[in-house]
């Protein structure tokens, strides 16, 4: 009955996130093609007038719980964009000749897209960060080893990010939601790791001698994620 993530004061505001989220959506499914549109959204942050050489702006994630939600949304955007590119790449069937692996990666792509769309719709429209543009550098999406190594990086990072952010969240509803997502990310992480090397699902590179997974601060996570995102993310006030 209640839309727990909305704090709008009137019915129109309440209904809005259910109706409007189309314009900034699915940007990454056609990675690269939407760069111009997003640059326009960010133009207020950008003093470079040359469209062909536009340096992306800085995106502030905001403060308090909304900051944490935007933080999660930024990471989910990155993951969703990555897997969308993996499964839409022309060489997908060649890079992943095993049909079951393709099925699993396609499922993960859906999960991350659902997480992305959920945060997009749930964060109040006035506070939500814009669509971010990925930066894949020299990553070869036709190379199974490179794809899985990057997937492992993102999944382990996502787990560590949610684990570290839990104690920053004030509203129990959001904490439970984060908990519902982080275990799915951990399932992904273990699965991807097993595809790389069977049995590495929870090895000593991610689980310590006390049997604990990693928990990273916002600053640590953003430092690791930043090279993959064209915009500069500012998370200084997340959870504060």
């Amino acid at each position, binding site marked *: 009955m209640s839309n727990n993530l909305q704090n709008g004061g009137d019915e129109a505001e309440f209904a809005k996130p259910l109706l409007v989220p189309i314009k900034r959506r699915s940007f990454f499914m056609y990675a690269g093609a939407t760069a111009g549109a997003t640059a326009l959204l960010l133009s207020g942050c950008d003093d470079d007038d040359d469209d062909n050489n536009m340096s992306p702006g800085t995106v502030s994630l905001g403060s308090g719980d909304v900051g944490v939600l935007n933080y999660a949304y930024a990471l989910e955007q990155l993951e969703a964009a990555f897997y969308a590119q993996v499964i839409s790449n022309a060489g997908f069937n060649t890079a992943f000749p095993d049909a079951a692996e393709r099925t699993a990666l396609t499922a993960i792509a859906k999960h991350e897209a659902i997480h992305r769309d959920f945060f997009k719709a749930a964060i109040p429209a006035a506070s939500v960060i814009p669509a971010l543009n990925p930066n894949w550098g020299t990553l070869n999406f036709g190379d199974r080893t490179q794809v899985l190594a990057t997937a492992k990086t993102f999944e382990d990072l996502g787990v560590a990010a949610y684990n570290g952010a*839990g104690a920053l969240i004030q509203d129990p509803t959001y904490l439970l939601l984060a908990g519902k997502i982080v275990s799915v990310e951990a399932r992904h992480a273990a699965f991807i790791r097993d595809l790389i090397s069977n049995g590495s699902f929870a090895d000593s590179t991610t689980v310590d001698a006390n049997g604990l997974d990693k928990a990273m601060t916002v600053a640590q996570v953003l430092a690791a994620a930043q090279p993959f995102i064209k915009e500069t993310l500012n998370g200084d006030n997340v959870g504060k």
Partner: protein
Amino acid sequence: MNLFQIISEIEKVDPEIMDRLTHRRSALSALGDITRKMALAAAPIAIGSAFNKAVGQQTLTNANDILNYALLLEYLEEDFYAQALAAPTLAANLTTGSAARGAIQTIKNHETAHVNLLKAALGTAANPRPASFNFGTAFSTYPTFLTFAQAFEDTGVRAYKGQATNIPRTLNPTVGGNVVNLLTVALQIHSVEARHASHIRYMRRATAAGGTQQFGWITNADGNGAPAAVYGAGNPAATFPAESNVSQGGLTLTSVGGNTYTVAEVSEAFDEGLDNTTVVNIARSVVTF
């Protein structure tokens, strides 16, 4: 007696009741008139679930109670894997040096580490290990063992998740000489259990005699041989829905942001928590201790 008198009375027993109700109240105030009437019609459910803590003790409130509850589950899991590694019926599958034995040993070691960590956190308040765990026919065959393992891991994930909101986020005890945040530690265990669950599911898929066609995540509320209750709703169901749930934060995610997704995909994308009473009932349905 009006509603606010009732809440006031509960507050004497349960000081946090307003925290749990406030969110629903602010949500109500954000609704329009017509919606408000519908919401009020559903309000008894919300109030009822808030009562549970004061009356039914559905919610663990004391940090030590939460830790001892986690400790019991870790004792159970540790013993389960220790018995499996020693079971003659599984020796042909868990051969020395095999990937399967290596994985089960890794998981067992993590459960042992969790036991030790929780005992250190509890100190003298730690409950003793039950005298024995009888897992019945769990070790009769390799596929049966893996099915039980999946049930325990998936239940463990749901159990930790279900307690996350009961752990004060500012609780920073000293454990083994280090100051730690208890909620963070619980989350760090929680994601390790999810990694275990994913791998056990991977092992079930790979078993020689026709593996279970599933991946590391939970589709709908499918147990694929594990007890249905592991994937069912808890109490209250509004807080702890079945794993097949497709509604999060008031949004039905089969259609969101202009995209459509299948029920199966949405159910996979979110795991659900469980209350401690339901978890212990599930454990006692398959284990004698």
